[in-house]
């Protein structure tokens, strides 16, 4: 009975979403306040029913209701309760429900925090979000009902995919979806602005905190996913340029461009059409990401069994959303223009260059990711693009971004003065050279490591020198407004990330080796002694647990316990053991026994030494923090503001128009 209530809740939510999607937009068009006023209650109602559906599905998992097919497929009696909760988004139906649930979280937050915005504008924004809700709720109700019954009811269920039985999986999907879906707000703002013709700066100011928070969540989600892949997939990589990873990376890249373009449009009024276009693309790529992950059209290490018919629905939805929004853009955007002019050497130009580089990167990733489909269409055979394609082009495209980064805060809007740029270039340059020389000495002249250290020093010193400048020149309390502090955190995060990537990529030692109990393998100055395996059991698995004693200079550093688990349904899962440190990770994973009949004998082991790898995620977390801090900017919360409010920094005299 209870699961049916869940389904009813979904259907009611769908009906409310239709009301929310149509009435307020019509109301805003006709100037009918009563229709516009439907937006908030409809959104609240939809949220209540979606939340109820979500709660009912969680309850079905917690109460072992195996008569629900989705529950029976993805959990069993032995699965611990916390993994039964996360199993909700462990497969297709539930993760779509999570998508809609998070859309409702954003919608409700927006409805609650938008009292100060003009009513027609809010009505349009909530209406657009309602339409998106319709698309996904219809998808769930008609093709992916998580409450489908399975009769007769099985005595026990299947299992949650073992790779998903990991703490990292608890956060990764919800946080990532918060980011994906969060871009829908910027999207809805843009559509509302296009619909209503409110193309002044005001709407950008309202959209900025939402976009920054969404981007921060997306960053956090990608970091969590990368960490999970590193710890759980058992081969110690942190990024594979896999289609599913690329799916989350494309909206991220466009998101970076978007949050910077929004800053230009908000403060200077320039490039509003570009900002709108980026908002449309960021969300379109989020939808495409959902489509790629869910349709199974691409071969991926992340791909799960999937149903192409559902892919077809999402593809149709994708065409409607992208096609419709671009059509609207084509009709309305030509009227959008204006803003203050800027010189060639100005913050606007620098941001524009970086924007183009990020947009090109996203296009490059898109091309590489979809290439198998293109190859199929052109009939040139089954073809995919290898990771070196992405690695080569991405480094090439991001190198100029790294070079430009320290100048960003020093560049003034409108027209920058060359003197302060020369100073920061000199400081950061000297720091980069010194660090490069030091790195040359420590890293045995490995070029990538040296380049990484130099780049990181360049960005870090450039950013810190701006911190010092603000500290010197501004009075207490006005030194670091939230917006600026967030920017500085994120830029510093880039330095940390760069350091982590380049050092771990060039200095890692990865060895797959065969060790009999008592034998030792030495890498990176650490001796790994394999002391055999013992049997071990968990709530829903049994397995072998290896004992690896790590010694440095004769002293024991750590005793590691990598596991090879066999879950109730027979799936084998490697649990790596990681000794984490700021400057290095030690990573051990069990392969298989050389002789399957004799687990006491020699085993295959992966033994890795990974210097600075944690800096990759630390850098990502700093960027995440930057996004959240920026969103806290007081200016964004101001009541209706005139379009031409003074920017936080005193604007210098604006130069003549040089860019038409």
């Amino acid at each position, binding site marked *: 009975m209870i699961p049916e209530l869940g389904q009813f809740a979904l259907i009611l939510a769908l009906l409310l979403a239709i009301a929310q999607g149509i009435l307020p937009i019509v109301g805003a068009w006709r100037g009918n306040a009563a229709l516009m006023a439907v937006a908030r209650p409809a959104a609240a109602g939809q949220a209540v029913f979606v939340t109820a559906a979500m709660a009912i599905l969680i309850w079905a998992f917690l109460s072992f209701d195996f008569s629900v097919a989705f529950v029976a497929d993805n959990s069993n009696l032995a699965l611990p309760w916390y993994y039964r909760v996360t199993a909700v988004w462990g497969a297709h139906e539930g993760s779509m429900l999570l998508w809609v649930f998070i859309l409702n979280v954003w919608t409700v937050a927006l409805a609650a925090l938008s009292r100060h915005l003009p009513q027609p504008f809010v009505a349009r924004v909530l209406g657009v979000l309602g339409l998106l809700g319709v698309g996904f709720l219809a998808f769930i109700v008609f093709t992916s009902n998580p409450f489908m019954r399975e009769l007769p009811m099985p005595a026990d269920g299947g299992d949650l995919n073992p790779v998903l039985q990991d703490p990292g999986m608890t956060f990764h999907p919800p946080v990532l979806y918060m980011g994906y879906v969060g871009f829908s707000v910027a999207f809805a703002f843009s559509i509302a602005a296009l619909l209503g013709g409110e193309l002044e700066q005001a709407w950008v100011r309202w959209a900025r905190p939402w976009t920054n928070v969404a981007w921060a969540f997306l960053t956090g989600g990608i970091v969590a996913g990368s960490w999970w892949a590193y710890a759980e997939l058992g081969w110690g990589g942190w990024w594979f340029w896999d289609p599913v990873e690329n799916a989350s990376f494309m909206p991220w890249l466009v998101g970076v461009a978007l949050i910077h373009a929004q800053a230009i449009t908000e403060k200077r009024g320039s490039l509003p059409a570009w900002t709108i276009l980026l908002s449309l693309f960021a969300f379109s790529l989020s939808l495409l990401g959902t489509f790629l992950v869910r349709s199974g059209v691409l071969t991926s*290490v992340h*791909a799960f069994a999937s149903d192409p018919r559902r892919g077809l629905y999402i593809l149709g939805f994708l065409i409607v959303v992208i096609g419709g929004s671009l059509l609207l853009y084509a009709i309305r955007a030509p009227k959008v223009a204006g803003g203050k002019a800027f010189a060639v050497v100005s913050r606007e130009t620098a941001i524009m260059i970086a924007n183009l580089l990020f947009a090109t990167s996203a296009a490059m990733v898109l091309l590489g990711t979809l290439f198998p489909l293109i190859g199929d269409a052109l009939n040139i055979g089954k073809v995919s693009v290898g990771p070196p394609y992405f690695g080569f082009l991405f480094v090439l495209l991001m190198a100029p971004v790294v070079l430009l980064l320290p100048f960003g805060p020093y560049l003034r809007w409108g027209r920058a003065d060359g003197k302060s740029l020369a100073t920061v270039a000199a400081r950061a340059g000297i720091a980069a050279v010194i660090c490069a020389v030091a790195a040359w000495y420590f890293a045995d002249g490995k070029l990538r490591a040296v380049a990484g250290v130099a780049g990181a020093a360049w960005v870090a010193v450039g950013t810190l020198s701006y911190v010092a400048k603000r500290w010197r020149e501004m009075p207490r309390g006005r030194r670091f407004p939230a917006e600026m502090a967030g920017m500085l955190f994120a830029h510093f995060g880039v330095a940390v990330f760069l350091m982590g990537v380049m050092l771990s990529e060039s200095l890692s030692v990865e060895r797959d080796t065969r060790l009999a109990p008592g034998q030792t393998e030495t890498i990176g100055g650490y001796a790994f002694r394999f002391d055999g395996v013992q049997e071990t059991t968990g709530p829903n698995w049994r397995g072998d647990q290896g004992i690896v004693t790590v010694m440095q200079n004769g002293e024991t550093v750590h005793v590691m316990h990598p596991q090879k688990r066999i879950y109730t349904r027979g799936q084998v899962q490697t649990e790596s053991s990681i000794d984490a440190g700021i400057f290095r990770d030690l990573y051990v994973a069990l392969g298989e026994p050389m002789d399957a009949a004799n687990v006491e004998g020699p085993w295959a082991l992966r033994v890795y030494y990974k210097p600075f790898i944690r800096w990759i995620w630390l850098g990502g977390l700093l960027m995440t923090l930057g996004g959240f801090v920026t969103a806290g900017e007081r200016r964004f919360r101001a009541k209706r503001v005139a379009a031409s409010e003074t920017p936080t920094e005193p604007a210098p005299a604006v130069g003549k128009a040089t860019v038409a």
Partner: protein
Amino acid sequence: MNPTRKRRMTIVISVVAAAVVAVSLTVFALQQNMNYLFTPSQVQGGQATQYQTFRLGGMVKSGSIQRSSDSLKVSFIVIDAGGAMPVEYTGILPDLFRDNQSVIASGRMDGARFIASEVLAKHDETYMPKELKDAMAKAHENKKIDEAAAKDPVQ
């Protein structure tokens, strides 16, 4: 030309130049990194001869996995409905690698053997990459892939 036109000209030329550079680099990178997927019968039919490295896809033949006693070298046979190809790999195989599993290995040919540098891991035991399904179906237009799989019932 007046200064405004001149400036516009410079901008247009630099944009075009940047686009040309970007496109040619992308084409270059694509050409260097295209990986084709073939099944054993397609390879034995000579379709893969022009490629240095490619991906080999098929099913692991039951009972064909042999491990070396003193190193991490392992050999196995990948089959599709009309061909079989011995594969050699040194390293640790993914968790889901076993008899009768679909597998994609990337590497190169050495004589009649395929030397794999990487064997694809999967997350899901019931998942078969669509492109592999298609390739195997294409290699045997008249023989359905389901039949090939049905010969080795595993799931």
